[in-house]
């Protein structure tokens, strides 16, 4: 390389970096779509770290309906008709193998097979088999893609859900939504790129959630998920204090902005300009967020799609409706957490309750998105952190099922995935994966792939090494791509 070439290369690199630094200084945080075209194509926000997607994306956004606690695949998605005649019999050692089980059932004298109490029937043109507990999802069976061969590594809730969200069982890594916000940037200049909504089901007990699940870990913290709350302000500190109305707030803001700008003229620090932009964005959010949460303009025929609970703020159904409204506004990663699937006991009481929380709402969301043409570029994911055992926990009392990481079902729909399709299978006991195993890293790699990202190339250097969502693992699940 000659000196001249070296200088040119250096200049190009420098110019690019300066331009990036400028755009970041003027538009980071939730980004500014207005500047997006300067940096990349339509698919990326201004604050995207990528110059362009690694390949043509199929999905523009994700609605991830996380079912916290671990729903039972045996009672919802993975029919095992042969189990009826084995009811109450000990799970064969040949099936169980040497796998660890939790201390909740490892002390139990027997591990008796508990067949599902619910019928399964084929639905739609595809003949997709679903539990009778999911009548509304049955109505959209031809939109669904079931991965019956999911498996994970963790056996307790905290590490398992952390693993799903971050690709590591240990705290401190960025969540999948933060990776996407970091990689792709925000498309809407008035809303965050990653929004989280939580709800609690009708079940008698529920596992807690932790803000770490949507945290940005070591990524810049503006990529953390912003949790919209069900009570009080939807976003922390969104409302003006009593006695300060909108015009008064604007009046104060004008003084803040004016004085900051004057100071910038003296000090010259570009960070002051960035702060001015963030104050303006905060002010816009004071209208855009309440407008988003206000569903009073939704007609009954839309509300009815989601079921009666949609009229209750904080319900899963209401959150599904908000998810659609967020999707319409091009929020990149919308994640709902619905608690209450941890059915160690009282399975036959709590599982139907959880299904009534989620079945119609999920089906309604799919239908609503489809009617609006949004299903084409929105990926929907529905599933929990692990599945549940075929054997009964507390068989004599209010029986239920224990945690089961070795196989379970995740459901997908929408952009880029096959419709009316089943991927993978389990053995006769739904205890081990029989065909086409899909690891958590594989699922995450596939979600990234659908958004135009090669999971091996979205990297962040921290503590001296390059990190990625899928650690050093993960294969895109080609078999489910449409």
């Amino acid at each position, binding site marked *: 390389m000659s000196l001249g070439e070296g200088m040119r290369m250096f200049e190009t690199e420098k110019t690019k970096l300066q331009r990036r630094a400028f755009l970041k200084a003027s538009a980071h945080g939730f980004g500014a779509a207005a500047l997006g075209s300067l940096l990349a194509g339509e698919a990326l926000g201004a604050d995207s770290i990528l110059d362009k997607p690694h390949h043509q994306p199929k999905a523009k956004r994700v609605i991830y309906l996380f079912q916290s606690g671990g729903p039972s695949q045996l009672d919802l998605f993975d029919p095992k008709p042969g189990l009826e005649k084995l009811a109450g019999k000990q799970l064969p050692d040949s099936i169980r193998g040497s796998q660890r089980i939790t201390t909740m059932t490892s002390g139990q004298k027997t591990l008796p097979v508990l067949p599902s109490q619910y019928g399964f029937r084929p639905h739609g043109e595809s003949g997709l088999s679903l539990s009778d507990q999911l009548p509304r999802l049955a109505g959209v069976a031809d939109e669904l893609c079931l991965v019956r061969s999911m498996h994970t590594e963790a056996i307790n809730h905290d590490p398992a859900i952390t693993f799903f969200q971050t690709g590591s069982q240990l705290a401190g890594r960025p969540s999948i939504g933060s990776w996407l916000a970091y990689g792709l940037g925000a498309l809407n200049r008035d809303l965050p790129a990653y929004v989280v909504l939580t709800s609690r089901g009708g079940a008698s007990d529920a596992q807690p959630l932790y803000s770490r699940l949507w945290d940005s870990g070591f990524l*810049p913290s503006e990529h953390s998920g912003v949790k919209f709350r069900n009570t009080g*302000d939807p976003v922390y*500190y969104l409302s003006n204090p009593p006695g300060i109305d909108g015009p008064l707030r604007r009046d104060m803001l004008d003084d803040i902005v004016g*004085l900051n700008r004057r100071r910038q003229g003296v*000090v010259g620090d570009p960070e002051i300009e960035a702060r001015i932009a*963030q104050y303006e964005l905060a002010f816009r959010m004071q209208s855009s967020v309440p407008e988003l949460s206000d569903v009073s303009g939704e007609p009954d025929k839309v509300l009815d799609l989601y079921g009666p609970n949609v009229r209750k703020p904080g319900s899963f159904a209401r959150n599904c409706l908000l998810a659609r409204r967020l999707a319409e506004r091009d929020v990149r990663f919308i994640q709902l957490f619905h608690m209450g699937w941890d059915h160690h006991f009282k399975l036959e009481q709590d599982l139907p309750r959880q299904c009534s929380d989620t079945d119609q709402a999920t089906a309604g969301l799919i239908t609503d998105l489809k009617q609006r043409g949004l299903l084409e570029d929105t990926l929907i994911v529905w599933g929990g952190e692990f599945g549940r055992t075929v054997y009964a926990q507390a068989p004599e009392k209010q029986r239920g099922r224990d945690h089961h990481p070795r196989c379970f079902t995740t459901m997908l729909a929408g952009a880029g995935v096959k419709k009316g399709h089943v991927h993978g299978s389990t053995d006769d006991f739904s205890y081990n994966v029989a065909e086409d195993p899909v690891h958590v890293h594989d699922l995450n790699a596939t979600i990234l792939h659908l958004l135009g990202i090669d999971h091996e190339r979205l990297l962040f250097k921290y503590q001296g090494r390059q990190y990625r969502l899928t650690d050093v693992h993960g294969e895109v699940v080609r078999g489910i791509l449409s």
Partner: protein
Amino acid sequence: MRGLTPPVFDSRFLTALALVGLCQASVRAQVDYNRDVLPILASKCYACHGVDEKQRKAKLRLDVKEVAFAERDGVRAIVPGKPGESALVSRIFSAEKGEVMPPPGKGRTLSDAEKTILREWVAEGAVYREHWAFSKPSRPEVPKAVDWAANEVDRFILAGLEARGLDPQSPASKEELLRRATLDLTGLPPTIEELDAFLSDKTPGAYEREVDRLLASPRFGERLAAWWLDGARYGDSHGYDNDLENSQWPWRDWVIRSFNANKPFDEFTIEQLAGDLLDKPTNDQLIATGFNRNHRINTEGGAIDEEWRTEYVIDRVETMGTVWMGLSLGCARCHEHKYDPLSQEEFYQLFAFFNNLEEKGFINNLRGSAEPRVAYKANPKVQVMIMREKEKPRVTRILVGGQYDAPGDEVQPGLPAFLPPLPPGEKMGRLGLARWLVSGEHPLTARVLVNRIWEQFFGSGIVKSVENLGVQAEWPSHPELLDWLAVDFSSGGWDLKAFIRKLVLSSTYRQSHVVDAKRLRLDPENRLLSRGPRLRLQAEMVRDQALALSGLLVERVGGPSVKPYQPAGLWEEVEKRGKFKRGNGQDLYRRSLYTNIRRTVAPPSMLLFDMPSREVCTVQRARTNTPLQALALMNEVTYVEAAKKFAERMMGQGASVGERIAWGFRSATQRVPDEEELRVLLAGYGRRLERFKASPQSAAKLLGRGEAKVSEKLSPVELAAMTTVAGVLLNLDEVINK
């Protein structure tokens, strides 16, 4: 956003810069292995050609000279001095897909500059040198003395500036300087009285005396403790499922006392890592070992005891690695470290030092402290978790794949081969390990510590990745300065206050933070320190400053953590957290260091300003700039109440509205407002006064915010209007920066 953004100036860029610099000067200098070559090999090649045998391709390793130079199947990867015969060079320049290295599509593609560096390095003889941070620092020669330099720091900094054609910025005004030093050393802004005393002291040594006053203040220990607590992952709850409260706060108070007493850093280290093993340990020395018990504890039903006990031991090793050695030891938990020369066996040898407690991995519904523990002498009802050795040592085995249930070969406590041996006379135990870290022979401890403190005062470490000084670390901005400071610190009795005093008395620190186009262009991140540091206040300082300005701040060192305002329903909306019982009265106004941190639902207003949740060791805080921060400062009850009380104080000053506003402005910024600033604030006051006059009930509502009452003697509409002025002041960029 500054802080953790992907580096605008990464090592490639700096290398290119270095090369261009060299070319411009027409000097043919050698490529520096550590600065230029190693970062490329480590980030682009070692994953397949490094220490990890399992991942190694073609049996080639580039981290060991002998292997890289050896002939295999008639091919030599590197022939020193002969790039034309070196397979490494032909492969990286190859245009063929199956031939080119690194293989495409793995995110490891080399830039043209990187290829050129590797070729030049081979041409110059492929000289390998040990990673700079793994050899003991020697005291480098200090660059020439100049008038500008107040001490050695400045002589190194000036040399760096001159090399890039920059000169130092003019000195900061006394106002700017006192604000910076007071916030940096105490976490609080100076009062107007302190400022006036400093301004009127025209005698030599006035600033030095201010610095000594601030270093002697008990607030100093509180300020530095807030920093140490991040790395020590201190929280007030156990984390995980139920996340019940613990009672580790006496450990936090020990940290504050230690910093205030200027306990030498070597003692500070030994007491935290092995205070229990000292001869007849005092209660304080036992409490100090709580450092290694601050990790989270799992109380989730069904958790497997040994699995979690193993996690705690690993957490201790990783935390020690990050805090004292600047190494990510945890990488070697499952496999050989990919970058640093640490084997999996060596990781478990370190593990063995911390594996010897009579402790449980899973404790159902744990409230307070888990064994082993000790009563706190000052408050015997409080039990503090500490370290205590089992009588019969536990056998440590390598865990295959890092899995607790896959034990392999037995190992004994031991030290990594690439680091110095145990000091003579020491036993291979936890106490020996602690003394080894601070023996003065360890190449990392002092460098890591001075680098981390440097970052607190200058905004960025001399090595930017303060959490990592390993092979993958970015090249230091001032390598000789780092070594000089490290040697000075460790050979000078590990005296923290003396070290910090040197930093804040430097002319570098005393520069004005004003930046011009040239400085911004040549030194965009201020890594060269072509101006004084201008940094957003840390989370604790943002709130403490507002409390101080309002007069609400309650200063009392130590004690159980308190629960000030937080959004209603925060704990209740997640399961199993019970009800949040907010504190009252003084509990609302203690310094933020004492705010209760429930790790799974840490206080949002602190998290928004980048305080870590304290679930794991964190030694670098981001410094973000987000709209959620704006919403918090404008709307959170803490700040609205502070504005109200600040306004009340303003109303008691001066004879006119203008004088009152000017006093408030000066309290918040230390500056006298210029005419235009005063005009804007006065006009705003006038406009909003009219609004409140038209709607007195709005004024009453605003003044009703927060528990603190305001004087009934004041006109509510005037006080409300002044509250909005105070609110504007608390939101100024200048006020949330130091």
